[in-house]
């Protein structure tokens, strides 16, 4: 069968590069609309009226239920990081720097990026599917007719919950990630537990942790906004909702990685 005669879905499935390229282009094309959407949600988040019940509910959904995912990802990343640093460090006889580099890598970079990427899958796609299903079943129109603006009632609470809970999750991911590195070092590589922990605590600075937490706020916003944006634009049918979830996840993940780089370079400029 020639490439051109294949059904589109098959062609896309057999050519992930094309699929990724198309998704990326679609994301770029929508930057303008996305910016307008973001500004309206941010404005609604900063001004009354707020729906505290909705915010709390979203904090539980986004934050609490993500704890297992975040904890498991962090512990494995921390453990693998320690192993790799040990291998690399042993080439220069610098194995003793494992705790220092683990805590630096986790707090400034990996804790927040891994949490962000995992939540792009778990939360962004989930929000997009939920909002998309509400759009398709006219629940969003119903909200409007009942004098509750979707931006305030649905999107702002998710945005606020993302921005508030992601830093909290990242603190937990940082701790668990460092403990993953500690466990491998102490039980696998023969480090002394007390020395390892002292090195970690002495080395890490407030700036390291702050850098990760500032990124977390931005990533939390991205995750919520991408979910709401794509859900809101969802077209009818199961395919429409599925696409919304996919776009939300891919878009959030790419934006997280891009902003991770942008923010990292900004922090370097600022000397943080």
């Amino acid at each position, binding site marked *: 069968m020639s490439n051109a005669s294949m059904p589109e879905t098959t062609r896309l499935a057999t050519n992930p590069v094309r699929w990724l390229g198309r998704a990326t282009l679609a994301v770029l094309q929508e930057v303008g609309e996305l910016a307008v959407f973001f500004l309206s949600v941010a404005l609604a988040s900063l001004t009354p009226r707020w*729906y505290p019940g909705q915010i709390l509910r979203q904090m539980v959904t986004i934050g609490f239920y993500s704890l297992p995912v975040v904890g498991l990802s962090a512990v494995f990343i921390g453990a693998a990081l320690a192993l790799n640093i040990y291998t690399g460090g042993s080439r220069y006889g610098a194995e003793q720097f494992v705790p220092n580099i683990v805590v630096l890598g986790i707090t400034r970079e990996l804790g927040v990026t891994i949490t962000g990427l995992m939540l792009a899958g778990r939360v962004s796609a989930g929000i997009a599917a939920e909002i998309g299903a509400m759009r398709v079943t*006219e629940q969003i*129109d119903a909200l409007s*007719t009942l004098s*509750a603006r979707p931006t305030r*009632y649905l999107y702002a609470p998710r945005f606020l919950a993302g921005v508030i809970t992601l830093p909290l999750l990242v603190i937990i991911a940082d701790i668990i990630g460092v403990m993953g590195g500690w466990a491998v070092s102490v039980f696998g590589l023969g480090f002394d537990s007390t020395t390892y922990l002292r090195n970690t605590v002495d080395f890490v600075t407030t700036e390291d942790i702050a850098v990760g937490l500032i990124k977390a706020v931005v990533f939390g916003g991205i995750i919520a906004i991408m979910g709401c944006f794509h859900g809101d634009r969802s077209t009818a049918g199961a395919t429409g909702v599925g696409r919304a979830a996919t776009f939300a996840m891919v878009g959030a993940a790419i934006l997280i990685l891009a902003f991770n780089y942008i923010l990292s370079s900004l922090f370097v400029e600022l000397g943080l």
Partner: protein
Amino acid sequence: MSPPLLMLQDVRKSFGAKPVLDGVSLDVAAGKSLVILGGSGTGKSVTLKLILGLLRPDSGRIVFDGDDITFSQGKARERMRARTGMLFQSGALFDSLTVWENVAFRLLNSERLGRKDARDRAVASLKQVHLAPDVADLRPAELSGGMQKRVGLARAIVGRPELIFFDEPTTGLDPITADAINDLILEQTRALGAAAISITHDMASARKIADEIAMLHAGRIIWRGPASAIEASGNDYVDQFVHGRAVGPIQPAL
């Protein structure tokens, strides 16, 4: 004659290059029931969405109780919506909330009523649509299609609206349940003294609930008259629709 409660003047709306409404003019008097008939894809739903402000017309005027609401947003729009109710085709109940929270949604979120009072009013509203109080704590997903429609109706009438919109109220229901919904619509709009605008392609429903019938075809109102005159409209399009014939001036949308 008193001025109409709602009036549409030469309303036009296109999606891309495709005109959906091509100059629709309509009006409904307080307390009267207008049914808009039309085939699939003739712009019936779009008409309702334009009136409710969920879509914006390209041109024309929409006047509610003397106020031009064509493009109104914010407070002016909410004042209009507070005086109207809408029963969505699929019910559009919020599946994250219980039945009574759905019914009382406007009371809780817009009128800021206490939960106890709101619940009492929701249960009273459910009783009006012949649903028992023990339904109040169920989730919409636990209800049958007919019950969901009833809950949707209870939500539409709980704010004592002056104008209620019905989007295909009987679609997807068996004839007996459909007739029960028609009875409820009649009963409740009369009890409230509310005007109603219904869109449907169900002739049995239209005959039952309409004071007046308007037929929408190709983006225009091609016939309008009292419900009793629908059988003798003298209009070929209306005749074809009323009698459900595949052959006639209207091409079946296949």
